[in-house]
Structure formats: structure tokens, C-alpha cells
């Protein structure tokens, strides 16, 4: 499996790089992203990722009670956690850059970037985790007024970064301004984040409030066997509450909206010099569906058992057939297929006024793909 994932990772990077090279070679590129847009997207991704990691891995980490009950200074705990998020993201970026360098070297791909782009990128990768960390910590302050003031301050750093990257200033000045934003973010961390950290951790990790999602939840038809139905309903609740379903739902919806935006920008018969002609939109739909299925179906299937780990005793000691239990777990994942169909496979063919046969084929092939991927995922997980 490890070899398989390495191949997938390299393959993915290779495809992205090929696409960049391909786009750069086009004369009249309608979807030509500016350097500022590319840099800001990467920066924003890392900031959002760091923010999520801070909430899940730092603020909700109950084991920090050992630190807080020790003679350690609360500021030191704050800085060590900040450093952890920072270093982890830098490490990840380092690995990604190494793979890119390797792929670029092996395939002799020419990327449309220069050394100033790289410098800005590195600075942004240093800045992004800091801003993400600040926002997460400050958004969990209990005092509402203080929370708003602090969040506005930390949020401004993102706005300022966007302004600098789209300012059209020379890279030298852009670097200078980004360093200033970095210093300002450090000031926010030192004077706002660190003093409030213990209070924030305490209120976030010790939160005993009941979730407001404890309604009746999903109810499946009784024609499905009781064990499978029960397990699927419970698994669906668990996934929803882990924000896994809402998160991937947002991603899939965004991809669907992206398809519509591409259509509104390129029109019904785009000729990007790709030689794809009438296949352009069908290919786009297929690629988007592939991504949606990987995010929404394949990855959760692969995690099906490993995520439960020590909790598997619950189902292993039940007087039920394991096949029914596993079916229930799988059903909870497959249940999200209407989202993929309605967001990816259907809207664009309908807008494009494609024949009914294509609309049906799009939905059918996406469904087949969903079941295929869930099968592969479950097989690998088992």
C-alpha cells in the first residue's frame, strides 16, 4: 500500500505540474492565474490548514493539563505549541517542494516561475501558520467583545497579505511588506495570544456543552437489515459531528460552483487550443467527479477501520454478523453519493443543454465510480 500511495502522490504532483506547464504555453489563456492569485491561494490554504490543526491538535488537546499543572510557564506552552504547528507546516512544505524538484528534474518540466516567486512563497509559508494559529486561538476567547477585536486584528493580516500580493509592487517591496506583516502577526501572538492561551485552552478542551446536532438524525428505510441500518445511522452521525461530512460537502459544492464559473467564463464551446473540442466539458466533469469521489468516498473508506482502532471491541462483541456491521459503516459513506451527483454530475450537463442520454450517463458513470471507489477503499482498509 505504501508503494501505491507513493505512486499516487508522485502521479498527482506530476499531473499538476504538467497542467501548469501546459497552461503556461497557451497563447491566449482565459484562465490565466496571476502570480498574486497563485501565491495567495497557497498562503490561504496553509493558513486555513494551520488554523484547523490548531483547533483540533492544540486547543482541544486535553493532555496539556500535564503541562499546565507543572511549573512550566503558560507562555512557554503557547510558544511550544505555536512552534509545533509552524514546524509541521514547514516540514510538509519542504517535502512537497522536494517532490516538485524531483519531478521537475526527472521530467525536465519548465515551470513558469522565477526565483522571486520562490522567495515570496517561502515567506508566505512562514507567515501562514502564524496567522492561522493566531486566528484559532483568538477566535476561542470567551469574552465576545475581546474576541471580535482580536479577530479583526488577526484577520487583517490576511487582507493585508492579499493586498500586497495583488499590489503590482516590485517583488522587493512585496517582500518588505510581507516581513512587516510577519512582525505584526508575531506581535499579536506575543501580546494577545500568549497571555490568553491558558484561558482559551481551558474553555475549549474542557467544553462539556452538548452538541446541538443531537436530533433524530438520519433515518434509513426499514427494508435495510436492522444491524446495517443502525450502524449506518450512527456512523453518519459520527462523521457529521467530526465535521468530516460538512467539510467535504463544502469542498464538493465549491467544485460544482467552480464548474459553473468556468462555464460562465469560457462559454459553451471553449477553444483553448487544447484540441479537446466538444470533449472539454465532459472531461472537466469527469475530472471533478474523480476528485469529489476521492475526497468524499475513497479517503473515508480507507479510514473506515483505522479511525476506530481501540473502539472496535464495541462491534466485535456484538451478536451480529460482521458483514452487516461493515455494510452499515460502508453505507454511511456511500450515502453521500447524492451530493456528488447533484453537485458535480448533473448541473453542468443540464446548463449546457446536453442530450438527456449524456445527463443520464454522467449520473450513472459517477454512481458506478462511487461504488467502485468505496469498494477499493473498503478492500484496502480491511
Amino acid at each position, binding site marked *: 500500500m505504501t508503494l501505491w500511495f507513493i505512486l499516487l502522490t508522485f502521479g498527482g504532483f506530476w499531473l499538476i505540474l504538467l497542467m501548469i506547464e501546459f497552461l503556461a504555453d497557451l497563447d491566449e489563456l482565459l484562465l490565466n492565474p496571476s502570480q498574486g492569485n497563485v501565491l495567495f491561494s497557497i498562503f490561504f490554504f496553509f493558513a486555513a490548514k494551520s488554523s484547523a490543526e490548531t483547533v483540533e491538535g492544540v486547543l482541544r488537546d486535553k493532555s496539556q493539563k500535564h503541562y499546565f499543572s507543572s511549573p512550566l510557564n503558560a507562555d512557554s506552552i503557547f510558544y511550544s505549541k505555536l512552534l509545533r504547528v509552524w514546524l509541521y507546516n514547514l516540514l510538509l512544505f519542504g517535502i512537497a517542494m522536494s517532490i516538485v524538484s524531483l519531478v521537475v528534474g526527472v521530467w525536465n518540466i519548465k515551470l513558469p516561475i522565477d526565483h522571486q516567486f520562490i522567495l515570496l512563497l517561502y515567506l508566505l509559508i512562514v507567515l501562514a501558520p502564524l496567522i492561522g494559529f493566531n486566528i484559532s486561538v483568538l477566535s476561542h476567547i470567551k469574552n465576545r467583545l475581546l474576541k471580535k477585536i482580536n479577530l479583526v486584528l488577526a484577520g487583517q493580516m490576511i487582507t493585508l497579505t492579499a493586498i500586497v500580493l495583488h499590489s503590482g509592487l516590485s517583488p522587493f517591496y512585496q517582500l518588505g511588506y510581507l516581513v512587516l506583516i510577519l512582525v505584526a502577526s508575531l506581535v499579536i501572538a506575543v501580546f494577545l495570544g500568549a497571555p490568553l492561551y491558558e484561558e482559551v485552552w481551558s474553555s475549549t478542551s474542557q467544553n462539556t456543552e*452538548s452538541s446541538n446536532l*443531537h436530533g433524530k438524525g438520519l433515518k434509513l428505510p426499514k427494508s435495510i437489515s*436492522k444491524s446495517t441500518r443502525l*450502524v449506518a445511522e450512527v456512523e453518519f452521525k459520527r462523521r457529521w459531528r467530526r465535521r468530516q461530512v460538512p467539510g467535504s460537502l463544502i469542498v464538493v459544492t465549491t467544485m460544482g460552483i467552480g464548474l459553473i464559473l468556468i462555464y460562465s467564463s469560457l462559454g459553451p464551446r471553449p477553444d483553448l487550443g487544447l484540441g479537446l473540442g466538444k470533449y472539454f466539458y465532459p472531461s472537466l466533469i469527469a475530472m471533478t467527479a474523480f476528485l469529489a469521489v476521492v475526497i468524499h468516498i475513497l479517503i473515508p473508506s480507507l479510514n473506515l477501520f483505522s479511525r476506530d482502532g481501540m473502539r472496535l*471491541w464495541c462491534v*466485535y*462483541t*456484538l*451478536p*451480529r454478523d460482521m458483514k452487516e456491521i461493515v455494510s452499515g459503516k460502508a453505507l454511511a459513506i456511500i450515502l453521500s453519493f447524492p451530493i456528488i451527483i447533484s453537485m458535480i454530475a448533473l448541473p453542468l450537463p443540464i446548463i449546457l443543454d446536453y442530450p438527456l442520454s449524456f445527463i443520464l450517463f454522467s449520473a450513472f458513470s459517477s454512481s458506478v465510480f462511487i461504488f467502485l471507489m468505496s469498494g477499493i477503499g473498503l478492500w484496502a482498509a480491511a
Partner: protein
Amino acid sequence: MIEIKDLRKSYGEFEALKGIDIFLEEGEIYALLGSNGAGKTTLIKILTGLLQPSTGTARIDGHSARHNKKIRKRFGYMPEHPDLYEKLTGEEFLQMMGSLKGIDDGKLYKKIEKFSHELEISDHIQKEMGSYSKGMKQKILFINAVINDPPNLILDEPTNSLDPRFSQDIKSRIEDLASRGKCILMSTHITPVAEDVADKVGIIEQGKLVAEGTVSELLRKTDSDNLEQVFIEVVNHA
């Protein structure tokens, strides 16, 4: 009825269990004592079908633990570590487990309500278990083990993390269950718990059953005043 014969479990060169024999009849409480890593939890996991033995047999009501599916209705299990579905509420978890154990929905709701009231977790039963204290999780595990009224109970450290009041409560519940004919195998390292409730005590050390008998028999044999002394004496000479 629980019957364990010449049970062995090896992990490569390491022998976790070196031929254990235990027999429990209906209405009997058997306390398994042992140092950390002595093999108590391994034995319990084999009995519940979570682990497969290398050799030997473990049977519950005549059914081999190797064919776990047949015996799952015959026992209630309380694991040592409260690994629960943190994103479910206590009520949702018990509803799922109870339903899958075949309890009728109407009866199940009443049982959950009764148990949560008696164990004083009613105020928390509709909150996510991730917010529970260890003691509260322990109570959920106990309710889960007994909710379908199985004829055998396998309890791994049942009084762990409970305050003295609830520890006492669980002990009297265990005694009550035994008086109704349940066969109960429990592991513990809290000797007073074993001393209070067990009909028979087995001391396991480095995968071997080094002493077995009623509490009074063990006290007499080792010339000790309490089970803690018995345990130290037996383990030191094992």
C-alpha cells in the same frame, strides 16, 4: 458457565499465557488478580473472542470462544479502557448497542433511563461521550455490559476510576447479578474489591495461574490477614 482449559497465547517467542485452567459455575464470581502485564486482559480478550488463543480452549456455556459469533449473546463485556465513540451521546451509544444486542426499542429506552438514573448520569446521557469523565465512561461501559441481561459477565477492572460510593454500588450490583445466577469473571488489581465480592480468586503471574481458591482458603494457605498480603506473598514466591 465459563470453562478455560490449558489456555496458551504466544506472541513469537513471548508467552503471554502459559496454560491457564479456570472453571466457573452459574452464580459464581471469580476475581482474577495479577500484576500489570501478568496476562489478565489477554485472557479476557481470548474469552470474548477479541483475540485467538495459540492453543487450549475457552468456552462460554459450552460454546468455544474461537467461534465468537455463537457466544456473543451469552456474555456482557466491560473492557479495561473506556474506548467509546466520543462523538456519540451516552444515550445514542447504549441505544445502538442495545438494539444490536436484540433488545426491543420500548424496553431499551426504559432500561437506559433506569440505569442512567440509578448511576446518576441522567444529566449527561444526552451529551457527547467525549465530554465525559473517566468514571462516567466506566458507568456507560457497565450499563452496556448488563443491559441485555446476559447469563455471563466478563468485567475487566470494573471499579476503575469510580469514586468509593459508586465502586460500592457496582460491587453490590455484581453480587446481586451473581445471586440471580449470572456467572461473573472479573479482573482487578484492587484486592479489597476481590476480597469483598469474589467467591473464588485466581492470581495470575507471568502468564501462569499461581494460586486459586476462596478468599479464606488463600488467607489460610499463606497465613495472611488480607488478600493484599496474599497477593504480595504469592507473587513474590512465583
